[in-house]
């Protein structure tokens, strides 16, 4: 299931997916929160209720698109943005894996120094 996100994301598959960088911004986090909780939205919908300009929202959406976190989908003449949870799940899963290995290594270190 994971390889699908790669194909959909396009571009160079060896390039790092800047997921953390994409999420390291309040505005983008709020866009992700909104899109992940509801249906796909247009830029106008996302701009409404925000103090930011359409251009600013558009710029943030491009960053999220580049990281594969949102995708633009055509709906007639409109472009809607939808949330894709996979890049975040993938990163989370990878960190869990590395984290688990450290837990095991540190447990061995404990046995080693406390014996």
């Amino acid at each position, binding site marked *: 299931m994971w390889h699908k996100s*790669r194909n959909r994301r396009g571009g160079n*598959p060896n390039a790092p997916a800047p997921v953390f960088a994409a999420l390291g911004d309040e505005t983008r986090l709020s866009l992700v929160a909104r899109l992940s909780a509801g249906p796909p939205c247009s830029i106008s919908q996302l701009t409404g209720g925000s103090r930011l300009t359409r251009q600013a929202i558009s710029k943030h959406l491009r960053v999220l698109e580049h990281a594969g976190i949102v995708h633009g989908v055509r709906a007639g003449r409109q472009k809607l943005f939808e949330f894709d949870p996979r*890049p975040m799940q993938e990163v989370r899963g990878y*960190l869990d894996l*590395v984290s688990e290995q*450290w837990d095991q290594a540190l447990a061995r270190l404990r046995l080693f120094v406390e014996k």
Partner: protein
Amino acid sequence: MNDRIEKRIELKAPLSRVWRALTDYREFGAWFRVKLDGPFVPGEVSRGHITYPGYEHVKWEAVLQKLEPERLFSFTWHPYAVDPKTDYSKETPTLVEFKLEKTAGGTLLVLTESGFDKIPSDRRLEAFRRNDGGWTEQMQNVESHVAQKP
């Protein structure tokens, strides 16, 4: 979401003991399960082989960063670099830091690994595939083996 892993553990052993276990290359190898070719030298590449059962073909390679006595030990490396056919050297490594602090009962060890955003997404996927029946299962095998034959 955080681009780093942090672990804090308190060890019932003196600071000097923990420092030696981390920075003496033979002692490090014993608990980390790697056979290193030589001592750790800041700025130099540390090489060796994993001795973890099933992973003996995997090379260990890290660049030693800091050795500040009884305080900080750090290196950069490529996490989960277990495919001998892949050249990981062009990828941005992560930074692993072990920070030590004396406590009433022994030593506080804070481990951090940071820089995961620079890891190619394909590499992350590969780690998943390899994890099926990988480290976790190996560990369970060892544990059950030990439990059966104390």
